[in-house]
């Protein structure tokens, strides 16, 4: 019986394999609200390509996606809609809060905005910036991938 595995066989645990699969084809749900949405679209476009991570397909339906990038300011009227879309996403799901307005309410500390989207949905990664450039957003997404791969974020 051979003691070493032949060269074309990969041995891993089910956990690791599942995590690898999840990170390599995360489908974002399009939840672009305001200026950050334009930067998110620019991240998906040709110059800063999200397609190299398997993520250029922004699914319109939340039921077919697993990452929700809240890009933009969430107003009081929009908060229940946000929660509903989040609830419609199947597990495992992750949330990236993109931009200052989504993370903390940003420069608009007033009656109209929810001060931080983490009051409505649980957030995994916060990306600061107003708006965060495509490089920052990609850094946030790749950090999320790393954290999933190491098992730090376990949804």
């Amino acid at each position: 019986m051979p003691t070493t595995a032949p060269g074309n066989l990969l041995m891993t645990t089910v956990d690791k394999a599942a995590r690898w699969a999840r990170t390599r084809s995360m489908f974002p749900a399009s939840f672009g609200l305001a200026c950050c949405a334009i930067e998110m679209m620019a991240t998906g476009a040709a110059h800063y390509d999200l397609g190299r991570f398997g993520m250029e397909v922004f699914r319109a339906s939340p039921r077919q996606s697993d990452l929700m990038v809240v890009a933009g300011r969430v107003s009081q009227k929009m908060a229940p809609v946000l929660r509903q879309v989040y609830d419609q996403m199947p597990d495992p799901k992750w949330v990236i809060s993109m931009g200052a307005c989504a993370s903390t309410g940003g420069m608009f500390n007033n009656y109209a905005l929810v001060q931080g989207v983490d009051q409505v949905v649980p957030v995994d990664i916060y990306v600061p910036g107003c708006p965060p450039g495509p490089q920052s957003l990609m850094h946030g997404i790749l950090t999320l991938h790393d954290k999933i791969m190491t098992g730090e974020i376990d949804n």
Partner: protein
Amino acid sequence: MTDDTKSTQTLDVWVAGTEEPELAPTDEGAQEISTDESETRLDEQFGRVVEDDYVFDDDADPEERMILNMGPQHPSTHGVLRLQIELEGEIIRRTKPIIGYLHTGMEKTGEQLNFSQGGTNVTRMDYLSPFHNELAFSLAVERLLGIEVPPRAAAIRVLMTELNRCSSHLVALATNGMDIGAVSMMIYGFREREQILAFFEKTTGLRMNHNYIRPGGVAADLPPGWKDDVDAILDELPRRIQQYDDLLENNPIWVGRTRGVGVISAEEAIAYGITGPTLRSAGVDWDLRKAFPYSGIEQYEFEVPVGVHGDVYDRYRIRIVEIEQSLRIIEQVMDSMPKGDYRVDDRKVTPPPRARIDESMEALIHHFKLFTEGYKVPPGETYVAVESPRGELGCYLVSDGGAKPYRMHTRAPSFSNLQALPITMADSLMADTVATIASLDPVMGDVDR
């Protein structure tokens, strides 16, 4: 379907060699020319009319109408716009746009920030054309203050706003194309935009929401070597726009989906206060840069494209021509950029240069007062409008003599343009909705503020 049975002949077609012996063979004798030579028959034969199965049932039951909710989370509504559509089959009978999902209380925030901070707030309203927002606000404040910006500042403002018009129209074309199905337009539009945004980042520090045009001038001078960057943009963009034309202009799918769709007439557009490319597509020659020129734009030669039919195709063509005309203005600005100050010299409004603060006590005091309290603007009220890529963007500013605006209201072009939706969408097909919304180019930050 016509029930003229004389003219329709049934043809039996089968693959040779598989004839069933039971069936009688057809008579492939002399081909008879149809004796019916009426106009309708000729039209059918020449392909001038299309016979399809769609039957418009005029006496439909009102209970057959269905109310469909489109949005606020929707890939094609350009942001958080919610449309309540009353459908009868595929035809839209009534529409009601419901907005407010992006309301940020910017007018209230504007009352809390002083006049030099106001630009940061205003620039995030119409986030695709931030320079225009800042320009409207700055022009209103300067009018209240009674100051004039130096010519170099005015020329820089024209340069940045016209480049912004290009980048905004590129996004409009990109999303317009993607919504209708030409997904490659999305990639093209954003590719061109990257070049312009790189120039913005070099000059203002940010790719979007710049806070660069401030009351008194601009925040900083153009960087050295800006002419090379603008030259590169002027070289690349016309060639790339030619690519869009090659892709879309005579494309039968594009023409079929945009010609005659979302039509608005000139009277309707004027009555509803619609401005911008939508108004010009209906045939009304109205552009604020020509009618009420601002910031020295009258010195530059350019043309304003006007459409004929008022449909989506005309708006697409107008946006392409507007990009070309903006490039023409940019070239003239580049050739004739005056030298001088980039902001007004009035020390009560403009902060002193940083080096002077170490030398002069007065400069230090001015700097301190300007950045803690802000400058006071004499009481008064004014309304100033600029031509943004979406239409008339105005700022109604009321000051009561303090350092903060007493009331700052922005006349948002997309807010009024949305009133065109119920008119253009009535009695049209559901599939045309997406094309119509995309052609109106609403930016929800502008609509909801």
